[in-house]
């Protein structure tokens, strides 16, 4: 019994280690000496999509272009840019597509509100359907099932 628990715990630790392994692609020679700036650079690069391997952020990607962009981000931070200015620099060149979190603006309202609208329509239909079913329920007590439920009519 105890052995089983031990096995489970070891398995869990192993999974955890796997998860931690898939972290980032930032190489030591890219990193800034100032830990605060480096932290900001990491934060920004995790929000930006790599345009070569599109489902990775430039923080995770080993593509040369991602590395170039990481270096540019750090250069601009050192030059005194705010986080927002750095992001704008990249968006000006590659478009909103590089933002892993889409901006909240006119052409993305469908994206942001779509799920809510679909949920409301679906919820409305379910509500409508069950209200009809529930209305029919009291009839059960009158024990006359023959009246309803004629299948295939």
């Amino acid at each position: 019994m105890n052995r089983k628990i031990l096995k489970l715990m070891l398995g869990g630790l192993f999974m955890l280690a796997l998860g931690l392994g898939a972290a980032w692609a930032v190489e030591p020679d890219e990193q800034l000496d100032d830990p605060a700036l480096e932290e900001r650079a990491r934060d920004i690069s995790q929000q930006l999509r790599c345009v070569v391997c599109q489902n990775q952020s430039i923080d995770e990607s080993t593509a040369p272009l991602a590395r170039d962009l990481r270096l540019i981000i750090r250069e601009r931070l050192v030059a005194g840019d705010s986080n927002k200015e750095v992001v704008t620099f990249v968006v000006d060149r590659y478009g909103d597509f590089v933002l892993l979190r889409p901006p909240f603006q006119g052409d993305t309202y469908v994206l942001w509100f779509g799920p809510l609208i679909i949920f409301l329509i679906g919820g409305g239909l379910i509500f409508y359907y069950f209200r009809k079913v529930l209305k029919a329920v009291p009839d059960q007590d009158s024990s006359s099932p023959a009246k309803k439920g004629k299948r295939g009519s």
Partner: protein
Amino acid sequence: MKRLGFYLPIAIFAGVVIYLAVGLTLDPHKLPSTLIDKPAPEFDLPPIEGFEQGLSSQDLNGEVSLVNIWGSWCVSCIIEHPILMEIKKNNIVPIYGIDWKDPPGEGAAWLKKEGNPYTLIGDDADGRVAIDFGVTGAPETFIIDKEGRIRYKYIGPITPEVWNEIIFPVVEELRK
């Protein structure tokens, strides 16, 4: 109501199928450029080895031209190379080359071996100008109008079809 209950799910399903059929077959690498209709980025690149003159954004003014991003390391650049040579030979439109992230001398050696289709070439060794152009991979070709604005971006090698059906018509249109 009963009929609606039958047809509505089918209609929704058909809608989803059409939406996905279109959406999932789009090539996600064909990103629209945010730079369309904007002036080409300012740059001043040195020449590649063995050439006198580099390439700067000033050179793009005055005439419709193509800016082609390439590199000796770029596998698909050789695919479009014969067409670029043909354009050069027939003097159809000037092509300006940006040699993207090539080790010193390799771009020049490649042109010597394959032929040089470019009017002017700039050496973008650290890739910064390519990033200013929003380049995602070579080859990429930009069509620049007389005022030096980017009017079209083509990603990937220029095939005869692409030249005849897309790029040449745009060039002609811009010349009017």
